[in-house]
């Protein structure tokens, strides 16, 4: 069984937002909404400051609260790669999943259903990378199977220092950030 995930190198990400534009174009994300975005995270004490630039999106969690709270069965774990998806035709727009996501990765599409990153599963099923990964000019994003010990994502996680977002929320996120 494949487990799809992403590894993003924050040391090479320059925050150019190409991934954001690619996603909006590929998935026809309506104006004013985002399935992925850039976070500029600055910490420390002046003059010793550290900035981490991250391309963020749904973390396709292994323990997804958005799926558990859905009263309609619209939010679900896809058979292929454990990707978290939404059946638009089943969604009632109750917004429980938006409140349940600690990453604020979901939003209500103007047509009324909950929407979010799909890891471009329609492209992945054709053997392509997600749109955001495909366009990254610094090649800081890698998509792959985290269950495959020989995949590029697994090797990067094994060899580099990395973290996930809010692991203490217990959601077991599958987007890993190299530092």
């Amino acid at each position, binding site marked *: 069984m494949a487990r799809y995930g992403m590894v993003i190198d924050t040391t090479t990400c320059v925050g150019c937002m190409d991934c954001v534009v690619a996603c909006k174009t590929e998935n026809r994300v309506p104006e004013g909404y985002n399935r992925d975005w850039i976070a500029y995270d600055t*910490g420390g004490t002046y003059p010793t400051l550290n900035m981490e630039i991250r391309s963020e999106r749904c973390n396709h969690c292994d323990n997804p609260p958005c799926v*558990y709270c859905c009263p*309609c069965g619209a939010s679900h774990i896809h058979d292929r790669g454990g990707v978290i998806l939404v059946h638009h035709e089943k969604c*009632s727009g109750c917004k429980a999943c938006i*409140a*349940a996501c600690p990453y*604020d990765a979901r939003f209500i599409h103007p047509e009324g259903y909950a929407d979010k990153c799909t890891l471009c599963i329609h492209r992945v099923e054709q053997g392509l990378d997600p749109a955001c990964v495909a366009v990254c000019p610094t090649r800081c994003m890698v998509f792959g199977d985290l269950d495959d010990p020989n995949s590029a994502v697994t090797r990067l996680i094994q060899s580099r220092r990395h973290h996930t977002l809010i692991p203490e929320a217990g959601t077991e996120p599958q987007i890993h950030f190299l530092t």
Partner: protein
Amino acid sequence: MRELVVTRHNPMIDPTLNVWGWEVPVYLFLGGLVAGMMIISGFFITRGRHRQEVCSCTVLPSLSMILLSIGILALFFDLEYKLHAWRMYATFQPASPMSWGSWILILVYPVLLATMMIRPTSWLSRGLPVLNRWSRTLNGSEHRIRMIGFANIAAGIALGLYTGVLLGALGARPLWNSPLLGLLFLVSGLSTAAAFVHLIATDAEERQLLARADNHFLSIELLVLFLFLIGLVTSTQVQIESAKLLLVGDFAPVFWVFVVGLGIIIPLIIQSLAVRHRIPHTPVAPLLVIAGGLVLRFVLVAAGQASHWTRTPGVH
């Protein structure tokens, strides 16, 4: 220092979560009120009070039905995909408190209808004479009446608890993430229901009984609220920050003045004096309790949405 700049600006999410406006607190309030009314009328019925000439338990089921329907209408207004509201009834999702709630709402109506049949109101039985026949059949067995009473209590507890569990199960919002929220909403539902029945009761003895019961409910509510806050402030940093929203933050004035002061402590003092016959019963205390219950839902829904993991210092 830590500064987080995000290029995203999704409506209803940024800068803080704002998915639930007035509709959800109104529903949570009315759901809790109806839950409390069902428990009270169920208690009266199991004690045989429905046989007395004047008992508010004869009007509570129809009032509950109206109030709950208004609450569900508010919930319907909140849905973003209204044509798909029926989707909640095309499935049962055991891990989703909202799914449990939507099915509990379906179970509540037959229980209320059966309770209405015990003593159908005169205008209804004039229009539908068959109701009198059903009522006679129902009243032919004391066991059946008691079962209806217990069904009211069970459905009321389920309805009252779930409204809090619904929010409590959302771990992404630290303020809500407490098992005590279910209990708090249940007890608050009971106190507002006792106040509401106190307002509409025509029997002096019943008013006295409900004022006394309301004092107990308000005292328990105060205790549960205290434990809820203690649970937050003795937990992790995100929970401590979320508790600060209520205790000293943006929501503190409304929380302390309208929920704790005017909603619980002042009516508790007034009603304690009233049940000891130091002052007469007036609608002031029950009205304060009802308003306090409504404000509690508004404050908790709004503050819960403002509480967040990533806005806590030191948390990515």
